[in-house]
């Protein structure tokens, strides 16, 4: 893996050009992301830092194709996201993108194993259960595979989310405040696990956080203020 990482290092996996997002508000149009341009190389880990309301989560949503920009272009894994419709973006995400969220976002009706299987099932991967169990084992939850989210602690739920994010070996992993809902010790362990997996799989990591210490674990830090990169 490290050799593959070294090979890919110079390729651009995510590129934004003059990305702008405006929304209407009672006071008139509001620019949340303002002409942001950036480029992230394969295998790189980048933190997007900023205060609440700086626009970092909106930027992450735009980069991951969860939202449409008002203007600008995004190239994700060689594909122009802005030229795709919603379903096209979804298909691209299924193949190339992983996510970790602040509030875990596990499906309550599914067991830990089934939650991890979900992205594999969406791409029609065979032996989804075996791969999912393997991924769960890598986050230390192999024995809790049949447990439901409500039977797991917050830290364990986030580990299930990590297993789900890495099970498809995505090209890019977007993490939105992954330790935000956890206590300091658990948060630290989760961060540890996230970077371990990231380096093992060779995934490009885009991490949104307001925690300086977490951001410092990334190779590069981008700071946002009032919708712009500073």
């Amino acid at each position, binding site marked *: 893996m490290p050799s593959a990482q070294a090979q890919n290092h110079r390729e651009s996996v995510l590129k934004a050009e003059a990305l702008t997002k405006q929304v209407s508000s009672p006071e008139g149009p509001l620019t949340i992301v303002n002409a942001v341009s950036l480029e992230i190389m394969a295998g790189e880990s980048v933190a997007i830092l900023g205060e609440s309301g700086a626009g970092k989560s909106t930027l992450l949503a735009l980069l991951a194709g969860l939202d449409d920009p008002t203007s600008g272009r995004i190239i994700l894994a060689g594909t122009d996201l802005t030229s795709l419709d919603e379903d096209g973006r*979804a298909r691209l995400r299924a193949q190339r993108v992983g996510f970790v969220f602040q509030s875990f976002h596990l499906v309550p*009706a599914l067991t830990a194993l089934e939650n991890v299987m*979900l992205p594999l099932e969406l791409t029609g991967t065979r032996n989804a259960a075996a791969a999912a169990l393997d991924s769960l084992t890598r986050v230390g939850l192999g024995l809790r595979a049949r447990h439901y989210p409500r039977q797991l602690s917050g830290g364990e739920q986030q580990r299930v989310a990590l297993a789900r994010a890495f099970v498809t070996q995505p090209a890019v992993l977007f993490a939105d405040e992954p330790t935000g809902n956890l206590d300091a010790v658990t948060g630290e362990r989760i961060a540890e696990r996230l970077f371990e997996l990231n380096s093992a799989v060779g995934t490009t990591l885009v991490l949104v956080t307001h925690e300086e210490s977490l951001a410092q674990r990334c190779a590069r830090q981008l700071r946002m203020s009032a919708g712009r990169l500073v």
Partner: protein
Amino acid sequence: MLALRLLLREWRSGELGVLLAALSIAVAALTGVGFLVDRIDAAIDLQAREVLAADLRLRSRNPMVSHIFDEAARRGVASARVASLLTVVFHGEQSQLANIRAVSSGYPLRGRVRISSQPFTAGHETRAIPGRGEVWADSRLLAATGAQIGSPLSIGTATLKVTQVLISRPDQGGAFSDLAPNLIINDADLPGTQLIQPGSRVGYAALFAGDKAMVAAFKTWLAANKQPGERLMDVEEASPQIHTAVDRAGRFLSLASLVSVLLCCIAVAMSARRYVQRHLDVVALMKTLGATRRLTLTVSYLQLLCIALLATAIGSLVGFGVQEWLLHALRGLFATELPAASAAPLALGLLAAVAVLSGFALPPLLQLSRVPALRVLRRDIGPPPTLVLLAFGPAVLVILGLIAWVVRELRLFLQVSAGLVVFIAVLTLAGLALVSVAGRLRTSVGVSWRYGIANLSRRRAESVLQIACFGTGLMVLLVLGLVHGDLLDDWRRALPVDAPNYFFINIPADKRVEFVQFLQAQGGRTTRVLPMIRGRMTQIRGRPIATLALQGERGEEFSQREQNLTWTPTLGDDNAIVAGRWWTANDTGKPLVSVATEYAESLNIHVGDTLSFDIAGEPLTATVASIRKVKWDSFQPNFFLVFAPGVLDETAGSYLTSAFLRPEQARSLAQLAKRFPGVSIFDIDDMLTQVRTMADKAALAVQSVFLFTLFAGLTVLLAAVQASRDQRRFESAILRTLGASRRVVALGVIAEFLTLGLLAGALAAAGASIGGYFLATRVLQIPYTLDQRVWLVGVLGGAALVAISGWIATRSVVHQPPLATLRTNYQ
């Protein structure tokens, strides 16, 4: 496959339970009624074929031309002939008027003749007909003439030997002319009797039966090629009244089941709404992980289809079980074993399930598929708002479609739809009023009750909906349960104790004085004795009946069937002239007729109109001299059409009367039957008991259908509880964190549902009292006395049922530890 796996996982979570239950109840209500009506309809068809002794029957006063039999044979349709006439048969010195049927081989084509070697026994079925020189005479004829098997019977100029006792034949019919004793002979013996002379009253019938399609094609040919005066009857026509009655009963039961279906629709909509609310995050997440909108839509469609199939399977099974149980309870109402049910109601159940889901669950589910993936980051984002038309249009269409399908008549459709709107409006207003009254009481009660009642007021819309739905279910049951039983009793009690309880029909004209004297000698209190002949009305005001546009089924019925006619110089005290005048002695012999109000109204007949009749082949035109209001429940002989004396006196006919006989006097009826064997005796008490039994059974059928309504009301309650479960869980956790004991919280929940049940029960009792009043005074026109039990059963029953159901549905919420709830951060 993914969709199915997701469905299975969803199913495990229990989220879809209420949806499935509601849908299953809707299907069960519809298919239960469907199976029932289907089987009864099939049985009536079967009976009707037996009544015709064929699939098609062509009747005429003239012999049939032979080429129709040739044509039938060419088409592969079986045929047989019957000639019938009334004549007196002799056994030595003994004579008796009998209905003679000369039949050809193959008779009857449908149903079976039963014969025996002993009179008055059950006998056995036979496919044969009497051989040449043989006669099969029924038990009454043998008893009246003293003949037995082996005896010679003189019929016209022929003498035939009795070889079998005729127990029954399928085409016996119920008309009075058919009440004469019967005998069957071989049609080859008919010419030898020399009974067929110019002017003799012989009825000819050609019977046809065979494959359905071939018979249908032959019927078309026959209708085009039959002679004037020949009348074609098929199964539909053979029993129009019973078909109409079953059709009406079926439509009423379907309408009743529709009430359950509509309540289930509400439960389905509530469940679907909650399902959508609970799944916004999941769908957003799936989209984030790469699910396309098409996939999420496919998942929704497949899930709905699976639920529809499952609900159809469960509902149909329940419906079939209920129908089997009902038929068991209704046994005795049908003369024959009922044929097996067809699969048509199953298709109907599936169709209804898909329709209900499409109307009530699909629109919110479609919305669900439109939730943006961005929701994983911003929980305030939901699906884009939908047009009101798209959200509610399908639901309204499905409801209207279901009503239209059930009533199948534009006027009734409009009435039911408008009625539904008014009913919903009234229930909503009543529910609102009840909730606000309950809300005012909360300051004067303890903490648990205050919490419970506060919950009702806070979730006002849901409370009103639950009260209205559950109240409806309870109301219809109360109306039926407590009103129907008393109605017939009240009516019977209202009759004088010495009202006639026996009817006597077919009294020979020359024996009527002797007959009445016999009855009086036994202590019987006789009423008037009236002659009776049969006639068919042909014209009103000079216009043929067939060309008149008649309003309503009763008018059609009056105009089509043969009428019983009478004449009398005196107006009975149970008759009152409402228009025109009764005749005087000077009117004797004038062609005047007096018409009963029901008849006049149905056929739009007025005083001065002319009515033309065909009486025993003779035309007669009479002028309407008066319209009479008849008190039918006097149980005296009464007729729709009464002629002035001297007009019909020449026509041969029989007489009828009624009498009151005390039980000990009634024993003499056996003697009477022996002395006047041709007279038919009807026991009114027996008939009333039969009516009562039938009414009880019909009420049972309707009640069991409305039981579904109660269950449907309960699913609405469960759906509402499910919808508020997260909120309840959170509130319960907060209350317990603040120091409330589990008991206080539990009491609060029970208080809430108890109040809800009390209010629904009060609404049901009020509705049932008003409904019962209108049913009794407007529809049945009998006095109504308010039954206090309605309130007792309604309020207490409603409170108990709702409190228990509500508590069962919510107890897990109360028992959940507060920390677990607060940790999961439900909002």
